[in-house]
């Protein structure tokens, strides 16, 4: 199974495995009329919200940034929801079944520190410079060429990923419910096109909050009932130890001292520096898909609080994703009462008809009766649609502001750009559908499409960090650092594909597995991006200090924030998050 780079992009890189699953069995679940009613109600509600909000999205500020009116809670939940794809739920539940609690790293160290850093340190710069997008920040800091490079990279990535997600979700619906693939693709994509096209970011955010609630309402019951059946956490751990002797599924850090001491084949240095720093910070602080949600906050304090609020929920997600995977190790049974063993996608057969990735649907079918199953399926769909809406709304913004406006039509009325944004939404969905069918007919390209994502975020992090925190960084330095960082990442990827033995050099160990490749490739491309930016900057002319106001730490006068009671202060809640984060890591050490 191909694993994700971080929890936020989990779905993106676990898709190939999901899609590759040949249906060796009939559909997993059968819906009752009540389940269908639950699903239909959800679709009716999201479409109604789109129509209702269409008139509240008539200006560009409203359409692309939701009028910058969102409260910290709404922005925070939307921030987390936009990256919680349904395939993340399924993919990481499968990873937990396969690798145990190690998969939790992608939710904790792979997300929480970066979310806090975004809220407390980086958000003031994004917010103060009033950019519409992350490429927009690059334009202000490094000039047009960096903006265009980042915008095209991002737009291509968004559309292709959206298509891959779309197709993968359709395959999931086919495997779980027996639905026709074209029906699933058209139904979900049209719904997203309507509500994002009409209501813009505001509609996307409203629906993401709704979808977030549904994901929890639909998925939370599974681990609760699973724990009841297993007899509680301690009995579950004992049964895992008994069923799978010699393998450790329940420790986060204890066995990461060597690559071959844990089932994932990763070393703690890769987890801490590759995942916890480069990949996580790259995704959570520079991927416009998530940053756009926070930019919609109504003031700087709300923008800073949003990721912190989101981090509480992110820390809780393993309860509905990882725990069902672990429970699957002890409660899933064959019809004859023996323990059911799920296998890798390449080993699915008549003898072993189910893959790791089916663990969550199998758990749902096990516990959820009429109505509840419909809610569980709705949770999966809601996850998919929130992720797709995130991709499409971010694409529409980047296309309009960072490609169309600078390259095609520099000066036009505000209403013109809103119209372009609406059409870009439709275009994004149509191209996504095309990408979905492309993947359907050439599943082998899935790996490459997914790898696209990993090529950009680490170099982009290097460029943004130096741009934001080093006033000596120059436009040429930023551009070449970004470009060579991307090229080095692509080169490392191609190198390992052409010569698998190169993995031992990329990950600095003969025992490294594919997961380690992702972590270390990101680390190297980040370091190359940093090094090139620094070297080129030292030989080129920096911007005058006066032009860096609002863009760079140390020369930016941050807006005065009215004092608030301690319980409304972002630093107070950040400390609580840090304590919880540390406590959880120690508890499951």
């Amino acid at each position, binding site marked *: 199974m191909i694993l994700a780079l971080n929890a936020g992009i989990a779905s993106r890189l676990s898709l190939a495995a999901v899609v590759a699953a040949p249906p060796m069995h009939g559909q997993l679940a059968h819906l009752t009329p009540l389940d269908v009613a639950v699903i239909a109600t959800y679709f009716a509600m999201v479409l109604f919200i789109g129509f209702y909000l269409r008139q509240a999205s008539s200006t560009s500020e409203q359409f692309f940034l939701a009028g910058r009116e969102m409260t910290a809670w*709404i922005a925070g939940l939307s921030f987390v929801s936009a990256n919680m794809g349904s395939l993340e739920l399924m993919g990481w539940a499968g990873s937990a079944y396969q690798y145990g609690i190690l998969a939790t790293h992608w939710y904790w160290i792979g997300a929480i520190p970066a979310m806090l850093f975004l809220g407390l340190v980086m958000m003031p710069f994004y917010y103060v410079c009033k950019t519409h997008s992350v490429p927009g920040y690059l334009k202000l800091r490094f000039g047009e060429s960096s903006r265009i490079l980042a915008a095209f990279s991002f737009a291509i990535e968004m559309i292709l990923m959206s298509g891959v997600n779309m197709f993968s979700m359709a395959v999931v619906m086919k495997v779980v419910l027996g639905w026709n693939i074209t029906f699933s693709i058209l139904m979900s994509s049209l719904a997203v096109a309507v509500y994002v096209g009409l209501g813009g970011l505001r509609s996307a955010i409203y629906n993401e909050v709704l979808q977030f609630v549904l994901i929890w309402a639909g998925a939370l019951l599974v681990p609760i009932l699973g724990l009841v059946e297993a007899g509680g956490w301690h009995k579950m751990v004992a049964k895992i130890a008994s069923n799978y002797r010699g393998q450790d599924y329940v420790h986060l850090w204890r066995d990461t001292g060597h690559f071959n001491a844990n089932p994932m084949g990763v070393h703690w240095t890769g987890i801490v520096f590759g995942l916890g720093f480069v990949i996580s910070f790259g995704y959570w602080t520079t991927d416009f898909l998530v940053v756009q949600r926070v930019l919609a906050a109504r003031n700087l304090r709300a923008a800073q609080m949003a990721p912190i609020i989101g981090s509480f929920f992110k820390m809780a997600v393993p309860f509905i994703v990882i725990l069902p995977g672990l429970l699957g190790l002890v409660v899933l049974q064959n019809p004859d009462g023996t323990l059911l063993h799920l296998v890798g996608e390449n080993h699915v057969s008549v003898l072993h008809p189910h893959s790791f990735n089916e663990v969550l649907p199998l758990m749902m079918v096990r516990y959820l009766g009429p109505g509840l199953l419909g809610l569980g399926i709705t949770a999966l769909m809601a996850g998919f649609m929130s992720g797709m809406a995130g991709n499409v709304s971010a694409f529409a913004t980047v296309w309009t502001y960072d490609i169309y406006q600078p390259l095609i039509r520099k000066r036009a009325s505000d209403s013109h750009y809103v119209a372009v944004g609406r059409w870009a939404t439709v275009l994004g969905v149509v191209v996504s559908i095309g990408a979905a069918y492309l993947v359907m007919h050439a599943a082998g390209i899935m790996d490459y499409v997914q790898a696209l994502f990993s090529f950009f975020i680490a170099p982009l992090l290097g460029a943004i960090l130096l741009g934001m925190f080093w006033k000596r960084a120059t436009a040429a330095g930023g551009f070449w650092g970004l470009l060579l960082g991307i090229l080095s990442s692509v080169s490392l990827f191609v190198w390992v594909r052409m010569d698998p033995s190169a993995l031992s050099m990329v990950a600095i160990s003969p025992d490294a597995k594919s997961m380690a490749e992702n972590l270390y490739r990101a680390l190297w491309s980040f370091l190359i991006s940093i090094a090139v930016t620094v070297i080129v900057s030292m030989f080129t002319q920096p911007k005058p200090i006066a032009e860096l106001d609002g863009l760079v730490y140390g020369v930016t006068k941050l807006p005065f924030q009215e004092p608030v009671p301690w319980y409304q202060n972002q630093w107070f809640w950040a400390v609580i998050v840090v304590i919880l984060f540390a406590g959880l890591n120690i508890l499951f050490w």
Partner: protein
Amino acid sequence: MGGVGMRSLGVPGNIPIWFFVGVLLTIYGALIGGHGVYAWVTHESSVVVLANLHAAVWWGGMILILGLIYCVKFFPRQQR
């Protein structure tokens, strides 16, 4: 959470998201909880594990209560 207050219903965007959340949860709670009670009373056979816990009844009930709370708390009112 939402910070709604008294607003004009005629202006799109003034119905808070939390009200939509409340409506959807209320519908789901009524559907799922209602069917759960019906299945319990009529001893409808079930193939799911732990059916004896009647999860649909208490889970649907909790969703219904939560939905009603949100509907009432965030009910959109005309601006005075």
